[in-house]
């Protein structure tokens, strides 16, 4: 009798223990199931359906129709191409500038802490504010930028109105907003480098270039890779800056994919096609992210 009671209470204790363990995961899991997992599943459902605009619900199952329509839409491919150009230009630029500036502001002097603190400021300017303020600075008529390059004797540029220049302008704005982020991570990484290795190398007569190439770079490689992944995760979501600075224009020259899907969904009310595009982008992003993560893990193991 007593043993039964004890084993039952032990079973109950075990259950209580398991419950208390899972209770830690529960709030996050519940919120994310409702707000993340369910919407993704719903997006997938809509992408295979026809959407009734009177009730805003998915009605008829149409198979791959929405996907076929989207894949035959030249504007979708153009937007993908533009997003690709943006990523290929902006990410390396921000990585190189970020780590370069980190090296510069890491020089040992009294003002170092202040400079590093000030570098936080652009990083917390809301992207939509950044886009708007740069739009003002680059204004063809009253903007400061054209006045300054005019002083230097150059012709004024139509930063936001010239289709081939506009993409570059968006990259510049994005780089302004995000380089400090890379810089701050890089500063922390540079400071954690072991000093004695460099001293030993210096005693052995290694020059600056050799030290950079065979000590600093290999030591930094894992964090460069990790920073790249974090930055990539941010950059694929780019939306606010393009919206505020160019609104995708001129024409569709800077209409990155998030902006394109947003307009198709909420301006043209083509929810089903937008859902199909969103699913395509979701899959693409996941595959590339997994690749980058694996790459950065490999790098971490190598060094």
């Amino acid at each position, binding site marked *: 009798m007593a043993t039964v009671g004890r084993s039952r209470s032990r079973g109950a204790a075990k259950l209580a223990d398991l419950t208390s363990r899972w209770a830690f995961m529960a709030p996050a899991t519940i919120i994310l199931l409702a707000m993340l997992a369910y919407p993704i599943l719903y997006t997938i459902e809509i992408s295979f359906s026809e959407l009734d605009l009177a009730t805003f619900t998915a009605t008829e199952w149409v198979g791959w129709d929405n996907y076929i329509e989207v894949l035959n839409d030249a504007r979708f491919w153009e937007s993908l191409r533009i997003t690709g150009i943006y990523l290929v230009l902006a990410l390396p630029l921000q990585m190189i500038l970020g780590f370069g500036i980190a090296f510069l502001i890491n020089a040992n002097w009294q*003002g170092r802490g202040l400079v590093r603190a000030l570098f936080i*400021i652009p990083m917390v300017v809301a992207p939509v504010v950044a886009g708007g303020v740069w739009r003002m600075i680059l204004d063809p008529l009253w903007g400061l930028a054209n006045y300054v390059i005019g002083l230097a004797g150059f012709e004024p540029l139509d930063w936001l109105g010239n289709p081939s220049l506009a993409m570059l302008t968006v990259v510049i704005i994005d780089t302004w907003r995000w380089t*400090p982020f890379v810089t701050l991570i890089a500063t922390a990484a540079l400071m954690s480098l072991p000093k004695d290795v460099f001293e030993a190398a210096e005693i052995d007569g290694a020059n600056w270039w050799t030290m950079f190439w065979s000590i600093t770079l290999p030591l930094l490689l894992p964090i460069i890779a990790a920073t790249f992944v974090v930055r990539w995760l941010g950059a694929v979501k780019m939306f606010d800056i393009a*919206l505020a600075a160019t609104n995708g224009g001129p024409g569709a020259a800077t209409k990155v994919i998030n902006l394109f899907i947003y307009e198709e969904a*909420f301006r043209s009310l083509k929810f089903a096609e937008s859902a199909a595009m969103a699913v395509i*982008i979701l899959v693409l992003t996941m595959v590339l992210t997994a690749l980058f993560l694996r790459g950065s893990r490999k790098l971490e193991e190598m060094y």
Partner: protein
Amino acid sequence: MSAAVSVRRRKVPVGHYVRVTSGVVACLLFLFPVFWMVLTSFKMPRDIFTTPPTLFFTPTLETYISYMSRADIPYRMLNTVIVAFGSAFISIIAGSMAGYALARIRLRGAGMLGALILLSRGVPPIALAVPMFLVARSLGLTDKHITLILAYCTFLIPYVMWLMRGFFMALPKELEESAMIDGCTRFGAFFRIIVPISLPGILSTMIFSVILAWEELLFALVLTNRNASTIPVSIAGIAGDSVNGANWGALTAVGTLTVVPVVIFALLVQKWLIQGLADGATKG
């Protein structure tokens, strides 16, 4: 030997000064747009639209006063505060607990779940915005604070979890072990021992979450229209106003109002912020 030393002594400082100077120049270049925004916000329109651009002028608060008293800006400010703090608060609780579970509690399947949550950082928000809008509409939940708060949790919780997991892993295991031997429950150990010790990390993660929510535009555009709308929506509207043309006074004044509190916040916790950034990029 002595020649080598003297060459070296002269050479190092020159490189050093070049480095310091270019670092400062880079910093000033990056700060300039913010400076220009703040400067423009104190200008009268006649000082804004000039060639050459005006550097010296009589500062005025006119734009601020007219915008704070006229339009819906103060109301949207309040909304932004509610939504940013609300979502950061929920996320810090749910995210810290999950981060702790991943760091310290052995749970079958939790690792998998954690990996999935981390992977969700790669989900483009637009893939969530479309269904959220449709569902919120059919449930009559559009334009409500709580909808936006929960929507922001989708990117804040994974972020908090990621940071706090690394933070908890760095704490010595004996802390909660001894507490639990002394009769604390798992929850007791977490809330009475672990949380107080981690408070600086939790606070700085919370502040960073507030900043992220403060700036968010896409969900705010999609899920709100009047009652719960936030400041970034206003700014997008002002910046993209092609009907009335560029209202730079409004843009810079509202922009400054948005940026200043966040800058103060960020500078207050800058040490933790940098540490958090570095951890967020490396650990996990």
